[in-house]
């Protein structure tokens, strides 16, 4: 117990890195995932092929393998950066494939008359998507997006294996120095994640209540 209380600051630092990693990767994945979803519903077949390939390949690859390719593969092709950024790239690339699937199901949930109407008044495909379809789609997919981002929060723990001092790595460091308090340290870390996941869940359900249009 003391080992936990005495190291409050270390825990907080670790979880701050976890939160930063989660938020940055979530933003990146939201942008990349939406782009890929847009490509998947685009009228140009090559774009659809690329997007479908991306989603199928990345979704079926373990995140750890994506991490390995990012951390050990990217330097081989001349990309050198910090472990934090390599982890960010891996998490973004992986999560984007799940965001893309969620956004695509949201696009499919918008009545096709909406897109047809906007095309018929002369809007381009991009305008139709940006101004008419996506704003309605996002309102419908808050719950699946929430579970994707909560999974992302948990997935950031894998960055601990690649020298990123987020919560899980912090925990391992503390266990190395305070072996006898191992149960307390592990429980405190687990509770930290549970608290973050619950908070995120509450925020998303509030967002859902605000955004959902009852029909």
């Amino acid at each position, binding site marked *: 117990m003391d080992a936990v209380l005495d190291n409050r600051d270390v825990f907080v630092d670790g979880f701050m890195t976890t939160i930063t990693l989660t938020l940055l990767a979530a933003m990146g994945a939201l942008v990349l995932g939406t782009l890929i979803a847009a*490509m998947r519903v*685009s009228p*140009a077949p*090559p*774009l659809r092929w*690329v997007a479908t390939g991306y*989603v*199928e*390949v990345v*979704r*079926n*690859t*373990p*995140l*750890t*393998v994506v991490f*390995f*390719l990012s951390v*050990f*593969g990217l330097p*081989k*092709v*001349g990309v050198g950066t910090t472990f934090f950024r390599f982890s960010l790239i891996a998490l973004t690339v*992986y*999560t984007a494939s*799940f965001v893309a*699937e*969620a956004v695509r*199901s949201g696009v499919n949930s918008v009545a096709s008359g909406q897109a047809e109407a906007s095309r018929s008044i002369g809007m381009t495909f991009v305008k139709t998507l940006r101004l008419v379809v996506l704003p309605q789609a996002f309102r419908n*997919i808050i719950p*699946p997006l929430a*579970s*994707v981002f*909560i*999974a*992302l929060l*948990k*997935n*950031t*723990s*894998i960055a*601990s*294996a690649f020298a990123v001092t987020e919560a*899980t790595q912090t*925990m*391992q460091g503390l*266990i190395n120095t305070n*072996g*006898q308090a*191992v*149960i307390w340290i*592990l429980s405190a*870390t*687990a509770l930290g*994640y*549970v608290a973050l*996941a*619950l908070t995120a869940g509450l925020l998303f359900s509030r967002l859902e209540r605000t955004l959902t249009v009852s029909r």
Partner: protein
Amino acid sequence: MVGVAVIALLVYLAARQLSAKGQFDADLYRPFLEEPQIYERLAEGLRNTLKAAAFGLALALPLGVVLAFGRLSRRWFIRIPSVGIIEFFRATPLLLLILFFFLSFPIVFSTRLEPLTALVLGLTLYNGAVIAEIIRAGIQSLPTGQSEAALAVGLTRGQAQRLVLLPQAVRIMLPSLVSQLVVLLKDTSLGFIVGFEELLRIGGQLVEVLRNPVQTYVLVALVYIVINISLGRLASWIESRQRRTYGAAVPVQTVESGMGQAGGGP
């Protein structure tokens, strides 16, 4: 069409960068043709991966059933702990669970825990909690007439659950359960962190010798992708077959709840 041009440009730039850094050099690929041991090692890794997944599934299924019925129990002292257990293990990173067993066991019991055991315990708890929710959704999607009829013919609540509700729930949720198998299989790769020699760790050992991380990890990824896409196809096939058999009676919304079930969750 601008989009197509942009994608083409990106592909060209990526290929140019790969070739500028010599990633297309034959030396990086030659071992895959000339060294059959590579495939023996990878097959060994794959066997261990499948072993961990099989143990995890075999233990997570019964745990999931118990937790699902616990959560549906009429007695609060069974229901509340079940909800707590399910929510806790669903919200905790799997890696943390694996490390929990791997790191605390030697200190508490002063003997080392096999990496496979730590991995399987973590997989069991996490997937047990997820499977419990899948089965609960299946049971709740059944018409209430099912349990009413079972009770009316004199079955006890336990018998009704075991003999009437569970078999139907598992059938309805089979696509989701197969999809969860994809998640389980992907998660076995976390075993590399505790030193379990599964597919990914063997890949890492090969890279130390071959010095071609891009090529080897892409090969490893391909193995996972082929297996997981097959499992995903199986899940969609079962789902389409069920829709044909049951017609509109199947709660499609429940089966497809969440996004992209066919490929497994994140």
